[in-house]
């Protein structure tokens, strides 16, 4: 269950935790854009240093970050290896049919590897230090301009936060139903494909009915407490922009400038 990216929040109180989710989301997007500025060893070095400093600033154990990278490691290696064999240019060290290992190939594959890992690390910093509700609130603020195009941003945000809120509840319920069926002798881990698909039915149907019940109850409870579609609402969790968020944005602006200065044109 710990492999699910959404809601992998780990409580903590380092400086990253004090930052506003809006700033963190913007910084993460900015990072994914500026990472493409890096194109030589020096710029990649700065990129890595800045990323690792951000990782260090969370004060979380390195293992939780490794857990974020681990599920994707084969995809990353596969992409790097493709780069290694199919990029030409510079000195050629080895050659066989369309495959070759060249100077640029080695360099590119290492760059791609770093780029992937850094993107995963930065987004892991975001998801580990920000609760899913904070992310939903932050996204709502960022999407606000779409409201002028008649996009129902508030409703979308509400749907998003309700959905996120129910991920752990539904997981919990799924575990409970699985246990109840296992107690009745159901076996989910043996037999062929057809048998396994068949064995999911006793979990899926109660889970489905359970979610419908929850949804109906929730809608009733919300209306009972005065929720009306389209009505203006105040917020319970108010997002506050603080000095930490200027540090956050300043940090990534500095990185952008360094990358612009060190990259080769």
């Amino acid at each position, binding site marked *: 269950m710990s492999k699910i990216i959404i809601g992998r929040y780990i409580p903590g109180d380092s400086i990253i935790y004090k930052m506003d989710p809006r700033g963190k989301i913007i910084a993460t997007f900015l990072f994914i854009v500026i990472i493409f500025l890096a194109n030589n060893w020096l710029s990649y070095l700065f990129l890595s240093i800045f990323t690792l400093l951000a990782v260090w600033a969370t004060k979380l154990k390195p293992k*939780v970050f490794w857990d974020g990278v681990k599920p994707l490691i084969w995809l990353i290696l596969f992409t790097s290896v493709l780069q290694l064999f199919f990029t030409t240019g510079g000195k050629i060290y080895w050659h066989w049919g369309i495959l070759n290992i060249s100077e640029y190939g080695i360099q590119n594959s290492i760059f791609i590897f770093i780029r992937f890992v850094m993107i995963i690390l930065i987004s892991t910093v975001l998801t580990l230090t920000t609760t899913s509700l904070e992310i939903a609130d932050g996204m709502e603020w960022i999407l606000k301009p779409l409201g002028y195009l008649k996009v129902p941003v508030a409703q979308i945000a509400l749907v998003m936060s309700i959905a996120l809120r129910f991920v752990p509840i539904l997981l919990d319920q799924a575990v*409970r*139903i699985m*246990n109840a069926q*296992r*107690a009745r002798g*159901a076996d989910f881990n043996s037999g062929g494909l057809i048998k396994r698909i068949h064995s999911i039915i*006793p979990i899926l149907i*109660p889970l489905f009915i*359970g979610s419908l019940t929850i949804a109906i109850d929730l809608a009733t409870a919300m209306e009972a407490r005065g929720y009306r579609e389209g009505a203006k609402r105040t917020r319970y969790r108010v997002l506050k922009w603080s000095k930490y968020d200027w540090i956050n944005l300043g940090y990534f602006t500095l990185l952008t400038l360094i990358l612009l200065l060190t990259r080769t044109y």
Partner: protein
Amino acid sequence: MSIKFKNVDYVYAPGTPFQTQGLSNISFEIKDGSFVAIAGHTGSGKSTLMQHFDGLLLPSKGSITIANQTITVDTPNKVLKEIRKKVGLVFQFPENQLFEETVLKDVMFGSLNFGFSEEKAKEQAIRWIEKVGLPEETMSKSPFELSGGQMRRVAIAGVMAYEPDILCLDEPAAGLDPEGQKQIFDIFKNYQKLGHTVILISHNMDDISKYADDMLVLEQGHMIKHASPKEVFSDADWVKKHYLDEPAPSKLARSLQKVGFHFSSMPLTVESLVEEISKELRAKGGN
């Protein structure tokens, strides 16, 4: 079939920041054919303990002996399935586990999984649907057409149908009306009389004192008492200290004691309370 726990520890999510100790150093033995209650507050580890009886959770440390099988941290799945055939577990709000098209099919689900023949499973299902007090015509209905209380009975029948030697119940009567509660507990008590072991998790001290003959009290993952309900509730200070409730008849008896009544032993049930009071009144002058 006796149950034996030996120094059982259970740790939730070990090695993560969410690691918590579910059970610590639990040891006890439950006698064959007894009616055992497990009491304790929310979060005291009752449900965690219950899932160990059925091999749904395996002890992180220590060992459990059930039905001549030993469960440790690395017991294979095959052995667990054999244990599950002998240990029926009714979860809290078991109506959430119903899924079949008809009540009959749902009640047969467990029996079929445990290798009973189609006819045998059907025969058992029909018998238990009747025993839990459902009208015959519900059998062909969808379980989702029924009322909450009826769904609960279907779920309970679905576990009792394969007649496990040990029946574990997690708050089976929560949310039922008083009449329904009494009916359902009588079914469990009768099941014990047929020679089976019944284990009951309950917050309701009245139910515990009325039906159980052995009692485990848990507090924050530790077992702090293992005695008969009579012994547990005779020590009112201890009960109070651990924030448990006294059974209603004992409470009334205690206030009567303050105004001069004498009780040879603290009554736990309404019947014994009535008996004690009439004995006392007769002694006072026969009117």
